[in-house]
């Protein structure tokens, strides 16, 4: 399970992320860098679906760079965080137009066929005028009912599926039926000259919180508890790294599928940079025959 956590110190912000790339039971690699340098003074630590993670963070990075070229000054951390959240929010509710077209045309086809069948001139086979009239009106009634039923059931099905999934699956995955969210959770750490260091917690559901400490994943149960116990505002870099190490220790010892390696990155007035790696499993070189 992917672990990302971070917090703000005295004139700096630090984020740590695990470095395992996992696919079901297979570990692809254990030195995957999940903390991207967004620009000179910003870090994005992302966890979640790896395709989405890379795609989304690179997209944000390039758009932040474009802003800088267009306007001559870099984005503030708050602005970058709000932009990121906005992109996640848009993707959350945006339905592919083709999907709407397919759904609508399907409904139209069913309705048309229903009308055709129900509108078949059965009354042709009757010769008595009053019976013929009654039968014809019955047919029209049946056609209308069919149309109404089509509408009703198609909507009910969507609602029903929504309801079922909402209770069966822990996370609100029923949104799948409506749109295509990016499954990436982000901690955005940055340093601005005017406002100092800041950390933003951005959920895949486009939650945005400015926080002093934050964490994602199963590891968050352990790292948040450790940070609640030991964190105080205005920590020095040494104290901060000590706390990060404490959190990593807890994750390693208490999480059943604990990732072995972590990377720690820091951002302060001198910029965003890699601070250290904490490796307990190294990719060993292949022994020669």
């Amino acid at each position, binding site marked *: 399970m992917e672990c990302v956590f971070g917090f703000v110190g005295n004139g700096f912000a630090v984020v740590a992320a695990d470095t395992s790339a996992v696919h079901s039971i297979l570990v692809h690699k254990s030195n995957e860098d999940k903390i991207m340098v967004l620009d000179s003074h910003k870090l994005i630590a992302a966890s979640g679906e790896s395709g989405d993670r890379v795609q989304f963070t*690179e*997209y944000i990075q*390039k*758009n932040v*760079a*474009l802003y800088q*070229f*267009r306007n001559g000054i870099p984005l503030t951390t708050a602005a970058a965080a709000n932009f990121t959240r906005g992109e996640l929010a848009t993707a959350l509710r945006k339905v592919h137009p083709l999907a709407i077209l397919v759904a609508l045309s399907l409904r139209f086809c069913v309705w048309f066929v229903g009308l055709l069948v129900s509108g078949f001139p059965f009354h042709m086979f009757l010769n008595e005028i009053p019976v013929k009239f009654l039968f014809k009106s019955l047919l029209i009634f049946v056609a209308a009912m069919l149309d109404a039923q089509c509408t009703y059931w198609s909507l009910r099905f969507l609602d029903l599926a929504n309801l079922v999934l909402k209770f069966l699956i822990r996370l609100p995955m029923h949104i799948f039926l409506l749109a295509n969210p990016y499954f990436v959770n982000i901690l955005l750490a940055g340093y601005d000259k005017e406002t100092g260091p800041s950390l933003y917690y951005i959920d895949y559901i486009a939650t945005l919180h400015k926080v002093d400490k934050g964490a994602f994943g199963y590891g968050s149960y352990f790292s948040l508890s450790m940070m609640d116990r030991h964190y105080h505002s205005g920590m020095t870099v040494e104290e901060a790294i000590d706390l990060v190490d404490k959190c990593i220790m807890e994750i390693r010892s208490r999480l059943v599928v604990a990732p072995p390696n972590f990377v720690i990155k820091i951002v302060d007035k001198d910029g965003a940079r890699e601070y250290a790696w904490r490796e307990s499993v190294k990719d060993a070189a292949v022994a020669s025959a």
Partner: protein
Amino acid sequence: SVRKIVSLDDHIALACAGLKADARVLINRARIECQSHRLTVEDPVTVEYITRYIAGLQQKYTQSGGVRPFGLSTLIIGFDPYTGVPSLYQTDPSGTFSAWKANATGRNSNSMREFLEKNYKETSGHDTIKLAIRALLEVVESGGKNIEVATMTKEHGLRQLEESEIDAIVAEIEAEKAAAEAAKKALAAPKET
């Protein structure tokens, strides 16, 4: 004052002559293309690529209905991201582009180009800046207020020179010119007598 030299990416800069409003549109598209290229192929653009893109854009608007061409020609400079070789390209409203060792564009560009043809030598650093300013002084009133100079290096990217720096170099050039004049006079005088 209006900035005529803009950076498109960390390693590419553009200077233009013509309709500034059209320039804004073109520069915006070029900047987006630079980032888009980085996103899709994970490589910075080469100078030739972005020049081809800008020229292609300018050409497109000469072959459609209801549009007019972009009224500007551009000079694009940059370093190749891998070989580190610097290049200079020029585009014009028709959409043609070509590579140059030295060039000028805009009003009185012909006289400046002639000057460069006579005096161009592959120099570096301060000498190159002086050559550029000398070419500009042929057609422009001297003074830091009327001249905008920017240099691009591989390490530091685009750097706009300060007005004071430009004034200093202009003064240097004026002094050299005066010295040359004086030397010429000294040579001519003995002949007269």
